[in-house]
């Protein structure tokens, strides 16, 4: 009797856990599924009241329209190039700065670090006009350099990687210094490999942020189509008085595919990094 009731309550617990998880999954995945389905609906289909779920009939026209309306591949190449370059440069600058803040004693270190952190509190909207003027004075308006330069140093990245370095025992560097290593060797060959999971996680964040960024690319690439990135190009699909949501959804699907692919490739490290920082934390 006792035994049976215990197994029953265990089953009930399992079932209720699955119900909750399934509900969460539906809530999280639902919008994505809707987006994909809407992207293959016709105009009339998407405006139907009450709304329907399954496209009837499914159509590939929306994807064709996205590609026909704009130099889609050019925008995609711009986005990819800028995101990869920006992520790489952010990793270089953030890891080196983080090492300096974590391991090298110098005057004003803490003040400087606090200043770094303070810049995280300033929204882009506030500095966008001065930044634009700066780029104009440098003669960089509507160029890849202008797209890239403001993004290559991430104070969030410096903060994240500094914390990761601080979690490593100092004995590691000391042993290396005794063997005659300099700062660069300690940084590149000893400490960096040890925080690889955090680096991978930051790479994902940086890539996503650059890939999705909108406001800065919007104002700085406006002079021509040459340097426009995908989100900015995609926004042009919005009409003033009405919007073809099926076309927008097709464009959105095409825009998020690289992010999903990048995440799937790196998720092993991302999850490990969360677990890693959780254990150390």
């Amino acid at each position, binding site marked *: 009797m006792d035994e049976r009731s215990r197994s029953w309550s265990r089953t009930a617990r399992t079932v209720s856990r699955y119900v909750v998880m399934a509900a969460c999954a539906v809530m999280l995945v639902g919008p994505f599924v809707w987006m994909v389905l809407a992207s293959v609906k016709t*105009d*009339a289909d998407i*405006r*139907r*009241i*009450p709304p329907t779920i399954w496209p009837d009939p499914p159509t590939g026209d929306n994807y064709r329209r996205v590609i026909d*309306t*704009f130099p889609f591949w050019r925008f995609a190449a711009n986005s990819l190039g800028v995101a990869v370059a920006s992520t790489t440069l952010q990793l270089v600058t953030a890891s080196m700065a983080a090492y300096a803040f974590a391991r090298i004693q110098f005057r004003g270190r803490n003040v400087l670090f606090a200043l770094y952190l303070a810049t995280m509190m300033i929204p882009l909207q506030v500095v*966008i*006009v001065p930044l*634009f*003027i700066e780029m*104009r004075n440098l003669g960089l*308006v509507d160029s890849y350099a202008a797209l890239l330069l403001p993004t290559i140093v991430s104070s969030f990245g410096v903060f994240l990687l500094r914390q990761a370095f601080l979690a490593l025992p100092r004995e590691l560097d000391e042993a290396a210094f005794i063997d005659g290593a300099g700062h660069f060797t300690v940084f590149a060959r000893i400490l960096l490999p040890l925080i690889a999971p955090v680096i991978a996680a930051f790479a994902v964040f940086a890539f996503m942020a650059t890939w999705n960024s909108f*406001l800065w690319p*919007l*104002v700085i690439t*406006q*002079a*021509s189509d040459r340097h426009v990135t995908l989100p*900015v190009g995609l*926004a*042009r*699909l*919005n*009409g*003033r*008085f*009405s*919007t*073809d*949501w099926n*076309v927008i959804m097709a464009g959105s699907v095409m825009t998020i595919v690289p992010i999903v692919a990048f995440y799937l490739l790196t998720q092993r490290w991302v999850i490990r990094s969360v677990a890693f920082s959780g254990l150390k934390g």
Partner: protein
Amino acid sequence: MTRTRRSIGAAVAAMALVAVAATQHAGASAEDVTLSYFTFSAAPDHLEDLDSIVAAFEAEHPNVQVEVQTAAYADYFTSLQTQIAGGSAPDTFELNYENFVTYARSGALLDLGSYVGDGIDPARYYPLALEGFTDGGTQYGLPATFSNVVLIYNKTLFDEAGLDYPTAEWTWAEYTAAAETLTDVEAGVYGGFQPVSFFEFYKSLAQAGGVFFDADGNAAFNSPEGVAAAEWLTSKPGTVMPTLADIGGTPDFDTALFTSGKLAMWHNGIWQFAGLNESGVDYDIVVEPGDAQQANAVFMNGAVASAGTDHPDEAALWIAFLTGSPTTVDTRLASSWELPAVSDEEAFAGYLEITPPDNRQAVFDALDHIALPPVIERQQEMQDIVTQALERIVADGADIQEALDEAAAEVDGLTG
């Protein structure tokens, strides 16, 4: 319309002159010039149409190249303001009527006065539209396009209810009676749809016989006419139209409702025709019902040149071409882009023959009684104040007079 008709003869004659005059402005230099043109109305559906206008212009002016930049309306002003503030404004760009004054008064726009009569033919445009792009008597822009709002109705729903179709003689009373009969909440069918917003309010106010600003420039919309207009708008949600909560957050809710045959009367613009013709709904249009008088909303876009452009002569030539040339008029009409703001009845003849709607003439009849939106420098804030006051009346049951009094005081704070 009378004003329009009178100027037809002049306009037709002027049509030929524009092209000639446009090529002869003495100041235009022969060296190669690249002009930028920033627009919100071309993407995503009319990029090719704009390209063909640009190509025709460049063929006439081989030394001038026009580079088109586009952005969606929602992002356009963010980008434009940054470019102007950053000192690299596009040479020429598009502005809607409501935003025009803000830019004109900020000193961002080129005074076109010296080109009027020399490259720009004023008789080519609807007088009222041309006047709309002046500020303090200075011509800062040229009207490019207009779209207006009419009453679109579903003929099938009227037939089924055994009601007569709306006519141009209708007033609010006939409209309300029909809307109540046609509404069947259980079946999800609604009699009318009119947004609760600034744009509907200023128009309804004019229909009720009121004014938004009095002669001294003080907010006067908290008058008895203003109360009537606000009551007309705010009484609809939840009765003859869905509640604001139902509508809220669903983009193009009204479009979906009408095209699925569940909305009888719809206050919306002529830009909906193309979509409606695809939807298969049996519809027609009529001039919106007035109350004390008729008043119709018009949305106008104009083309302007930047005060800081290096090539003012070419910029003026380009915007004159963009707004008034026969190529532009034909291209816009053929692709059912927004209507060109030229006074040229002959050019519109072909447009009038396209059906549905059968009563396409209502698009032009509506121009006989235009109510232009009130425009101030802090336009967006004013629009928000009025819209929010109306929403308070609907959502919180705020007293109409009090809500309007408060809004009027706030608007005076913006202008004073």
